[in-house]
């Protein structure tokens, strides 16, 4: 019987989800992460989940993996020491950057001067130059190139990056330099800018390619090590990793272009939400993934997540496609405080993290956190993780009292205030992916997951008018669900940079055909036959003179029919007006073209749970009291595993399961669907 294993490595826990592909039967496992070598937890978890399911590792046909190894290398500054080769005159390309000082007026007074991602002493210039059209102005001076690279050798670099001016038009010089570099540095990886990002803008291209170099050794080591250990276990199936854009990539290719995996972890949450979305038949979803220190949010429209042409990790933003996941520093561990000067209540971005943790965890934390506020309000019953983890209510109250005193309110009011602000921060992040992009959140459902997502989702959904609020099955391991259920996907982009009058339908047809071949071949190499591939095209379009493009889907048949360009113009005008409320009588410029190939793998079925009589009383654990909007209300605590499909659960209540807790507010009712997802709607 075929099995798939999804594995998500988080900061605290490594989550695993095993699926039997034909029946959809699943097994979950959560093991402590091993940050010094994350593969240990992966292997331990894999062994124990195989035991649970009573299978052997040889039965796993696909291993699908989302990882934060690259993310953490960037966040913790533990990337490789990277050399950079640039065109003469551009040594300080990363030092000067875009000259931007983030923040408002006078922000430069406190802004820490950042060190470039590739150190200046590891950056060398070579004598060569291409024009903006890609013509050779100055041929490569080979002797000078060699001596520059020899000099770089003294710096003991661990990875090398090549980024030359205008190479996005003509990669010839970069390829030549790479050849020389491989002679001089036979044992370190070389990343070439026009291969990683064939796009205009030298700084962004250099930075993105350097970022690739930065994480390449650590990722290559991690991935090859993991592969080796899995093979030792007897796992013969395909090993794939989740990219930041929600697609899959074979483990060998991932080692070469790890810049595409910087947001691999959060992407799993979005793809997990997509899978749940299919089972609930809800196509428009906002996701709310609440962890200990931060919250990730994303938007899914008509079953498609929003893609960005950038990836941001901490302060680093590179040009690699990623699911449009926004992160805010608001999570269960976010610390509440009241600055003396303004007397305002602030929550985060400082976090108590896993250590010392919230006060109620009894691990030494004393500062008031969002989790403590939940405990005070009764949203979190005394024990977590199925009873193995006790929460100290008195410690929570004591911590929240410091806020209550500073604001001169009751402890409950202070706790409610903290939750309100945390919700507002999450709401702010959700606005960035919805309203700021022209979407009305009232047209979307909201799905909360992660350890604390379902504690906040009802309240945030109420703020946004986003219904139903979905409490998915396995909210605590949804990222692993995403990893396990994702399809293989490849993308290929080309710069075009010409107005529509300077091209024709025939040229575009030809280009799309070429690009289709590239992505289809890529997928074929991953073992997906052509007849099992879906191809999509997209163009980045703008009015000539604008700096940012809007992505418009293309149908290649239209170009064969000679109507493609006209339709593209009309589609762009419509989209521009929707986003920005106006159109211009200016020529349209096609900035780039993209082809995407997606494997049409068999969809993973979801388990159907037993049907009940609509009454959830069989799942009541005990009566309970919750403090909501200024009053103490009678409530109940439910055991999620005992809920049946069709059950209608009235708010206010708390629903507990192994790895997550959900809250339903007053005047709301949760309905259990056939797969066990809970859909919360207002009762009115």
């Amino acid at each position, binding site marked *: 019987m075929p099995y798939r294993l999804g594995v998500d490595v988080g900061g605290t826990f490594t989550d695993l989800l095993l699926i039997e592909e034909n029946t959809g039967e699943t097994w979950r496992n959560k093991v402590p992460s091993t940050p010094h070598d994350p593969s240990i937890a992966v292997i331990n978890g894999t062994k124990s989940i195989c035991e649970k399911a009573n299978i052997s590792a040889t039965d796993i046909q696909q291993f699908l993996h989302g990882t934060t190894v690259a993310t953490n290398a960037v966040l913790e500054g533990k990337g490789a020491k990277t050399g950079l080769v640039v065109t003469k005159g551009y040594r300080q390309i990363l030092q*000067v950057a875009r000259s931007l000082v983030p923040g*408002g*007026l006078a922000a*430069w007074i406190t802004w820490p001067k950042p060190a470039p991602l590739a150190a200046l002493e590891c950056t060398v210039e070579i004598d060569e130059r291409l*024009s903006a059209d890609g013509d050779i*102005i100055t041929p490569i001076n080979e002797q000078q190139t060699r001596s520059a690279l020899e000099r770089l050798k003294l710096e003991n670099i661990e990875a090398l990056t090549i980024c030359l001016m205008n190479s996005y038009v003509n990669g010839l010089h970069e390829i030549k330099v790479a050849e020389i570099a491989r002679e001089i540095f036979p044992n370190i990886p070389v990343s070439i800018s026009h291969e990683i990002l064939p796009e205009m803008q030298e700084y962004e291209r250099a930075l993105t390619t350097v970022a690739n170099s930065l994480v390449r050794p650590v990722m290559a080591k991690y991935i090859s090590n993991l592969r080796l250990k899995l093979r030792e276990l007897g796992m013969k199936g395909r090993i794939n990793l989740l990219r930041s854009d929600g697609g899959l990539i074979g483990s060998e290719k991932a080692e070469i272009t790890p810049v595409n995996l910087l947001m691999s972890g959060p992407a799993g949450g979005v793809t997990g939400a997509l899978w749940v979305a299919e089972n609930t038949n809800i196509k428009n979803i906002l996701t709310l993934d609440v962890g200990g220190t931060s919250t990730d949010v994303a938007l899914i429209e008509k079953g498609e997540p929003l893609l960005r042409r950038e990836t941001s990790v901490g302060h680093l933003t590179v040009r690699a496609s990623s699911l449009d996941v926004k992160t805010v520093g608001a999570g269960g561990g976010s610390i509440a405080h009241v600055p003396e000067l303004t007397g305002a209540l602030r929550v985060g971005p400082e976090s108590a993290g896993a250590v010392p943790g919230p006060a109620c965890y009894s691990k030494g934390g004393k500062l008031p956190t969002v989790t403590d506020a939940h405990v005070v309000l009764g949203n979190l019953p005394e024990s977590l993780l199925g009873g193995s983890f006790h929460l100290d209510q008195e410690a929570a109250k004591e911590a929240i009292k410091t806020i209550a005193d500073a604001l001169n309110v009751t402890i409950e009011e202070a706790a409610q205030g903290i939750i309100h602000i945390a919700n507002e921060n999450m709401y702010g992040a959700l606005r960035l992916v919805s309203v700021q992009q022209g979407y009305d959140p009232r047209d979307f459902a909201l799905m909360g997951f992660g350890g604390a997502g379902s504690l906040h989702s009802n309240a945030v959904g109420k703020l946004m008018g986003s219904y139903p609020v979905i409490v998915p099955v396995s909210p605590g391991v949804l990222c692993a669900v995403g990893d396990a259920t994702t399809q293989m996907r490849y993308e290929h982009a080309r710069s075009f940079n010409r107005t529509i009058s300077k091209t024709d339908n025939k040229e575009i047809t030809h280009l799309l055909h070429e690009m289709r071949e590239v992505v289809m071949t890529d997928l074929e190499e991953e073992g997906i036959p052509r007849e099992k591939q879906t191809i999509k095209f997209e163009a980045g379009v703008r009015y000539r*003179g*604008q700096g940012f493009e809007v992505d418009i889907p293309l149908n290649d048949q239209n170009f064969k029919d000679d109507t493609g360009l006209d339709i593209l113009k009309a589609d762009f005008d419509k989209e521009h007006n929707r986003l920005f409320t106006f159109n211009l009588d200016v020529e349209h410029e096609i900035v780039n073209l993209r082809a995407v190939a997606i494997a049409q793998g068999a969809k993973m079925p979801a388990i159907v749970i037993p049907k009940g009589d609509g009454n959830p009383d069989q799942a009541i654990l005990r009566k309970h009291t919750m403090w909501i909007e200024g009053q103490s209300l009678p409530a109940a605590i439910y055991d999620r595993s005992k809920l049946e499909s069709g059950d209608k659960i009235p708010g206010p209540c708390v629903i507990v399961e192994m790895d997550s807790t959900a809250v339903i507010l007053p005047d709301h009712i949760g309905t259990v669907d056939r797969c066990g997802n809970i859909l919360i709607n207002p009762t009115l």
Partner: protein
Amino acid sequence: MTAQIILNNNTPFQQVDVDTITLDIIENALRNAREEMDATLFRTAMSPGIREQGDAFPLIAEREGKMIVGQFGSFIDGFLKAYNGTIEEGDVFWLSDPYACDGAVSHNNDWLIIRPIFKNGRLVSWASMFGHQTDIGGKVPGSMPTDATSVFEEGIRIPPVKLYKKDILQEDLLNLVLHQVRMPEWCRADLYAIIASCRVAEKRILEICDRFGENEYISATDYLLARNKRAMGHLINNAVGEEKVYFEDFVCDDGRGFGPYKLKCTMWREGEKVILDFNGTDPQAAGSINFYLNENMLKMFFGIYMIMVFDPQVLINDGFYDLVDVRIPKGSLLKPNFPAALSCRTHALGRIFDLLGALLGKKQPEFMCAAGFSSSPHLMFSGTDKKTGEWFQLFQIGFGGIPGRPFGDGADGHSLWPGFTNVPNEFLERYFPMRITHYTSLADSGGAGFYRGGNGILMTYEFLNSGVISIHDDRWYTHPWGVNGGEPGARSRKILRRKDGSKTVLPAKCDGVEVFTGDQLDYITWGGGGWGNPLERDSELIALEVKQGLVTAAGAFENYGVKVENDYSVNQKETQMRRVEMAKNRPEGIFNFGPDMQSLRENCLSDTGLEAPTPPRWS
């Protein structure tokens, strides 16, 4: 003369209680709205000046026009004072004449859009934004003639007019204006982009009113202003003394051969109020460097500097305005009489920030930054493309050294203006007939110090088409000063290298310089001043910076007393000797301006390649 606001609903708003948490939510929501304004603008605007470089400023104000979120303080107040007409639901105001809005914008290039926001017939808020247009007509491309003597030479002047009435675009008006400019396509797109941004803000404000209630929103904005006033009052009391302190700095020249011009400000506190008095500032210039300074804008600059220096956690708005009294003598460089030319006011505007930093630091010098990159130098390049026959026109803002700061080194080649970025050189090369052969920060140009001033930038343009260039720059004559023992930064310079090998030093402010294919321009901006004693800077760090090309070996020895060997190691013995020697002649005082005025004048030609400016005379 005041504006008349027409309301369809005269029910007064009720003052209601708003709890702290709701207040914070509304403040955050308004901040989000402002960020959406920026995002909309950058995604739709066309001119590189606005889009790539970010020369545009958003604002959301409460019903009386006081800024709740934004950057430069409220422009509404100046408009309301000077506009003599009706304000109705569905209006969009458009203006650019500084004299017609009390300096709400300060040169004709800045097009300002103001949108009053009504809800159920009552005025609840304002959204506004201005952006610098690449060209607004007039006698030179870019519309900022360095030799202008009146505002009539500086492109089209737009008094406050209704671009939309009842939300209907007055197309004739727009067409009339766009007919006057060299780049109508950019102007139209940028203007629409600004309007779209204001509409985004309006939508959000109406949503907030729906969510919390109109009375709640109005009361919340009042509380937010009061909250800021409280926090700022506390800061002012601690940071500003009752004894008078003053500082003066200079704009090097007026583009017509006269200079330098003095800007002077005296600061003291009377009770809870701080007074900023510009008495002693030179009279207005004949040329276009005058800066029509709006008092409220200065209050905002002052407020933001206060919080950035002393407590960056405070969220700024207009609430503290009553605590600041700004006095600017009429007829001075900072309050010129109509119709004085204004277009090149960027240098005086920038220098105000050096002035404010110095004043605020006088009481606590350890919190003070050195003089920074206090201007935004421009390069204009225009002509007719020989291949396509099309007109091209570039307006580009340059960057330089962030000064040494109490918190660390200044960044090299960065912007002191919020949100400004450079234009990618590959973009320049694709869309303009030029090649950028060097783009680097210039070693040793940052002032030496315990914390080094950021280096200025060397950008070399090779022109691939004939055309005409203009340059607007400053600090070529006076130095960006150092503080607390730090040295001044290097001055700016511009060198035109002709294809035939000849070299010309170009004036800091010039128009109409013809360039031809193959000519090269070295555009060198100035460095930031240093902070603290350079002899105490870690010698190993200096050696590393020599290796990195940020400091030369000669500069390390000369300015820091550190002998760096060819292998980038520190020669400890020579370093120690040199540092001991240098310590004997350390300059005294908080500020280090470099050579005095007389030396600057005497050595001008030999140091800069340019004649010293003639001291200005006034009848």
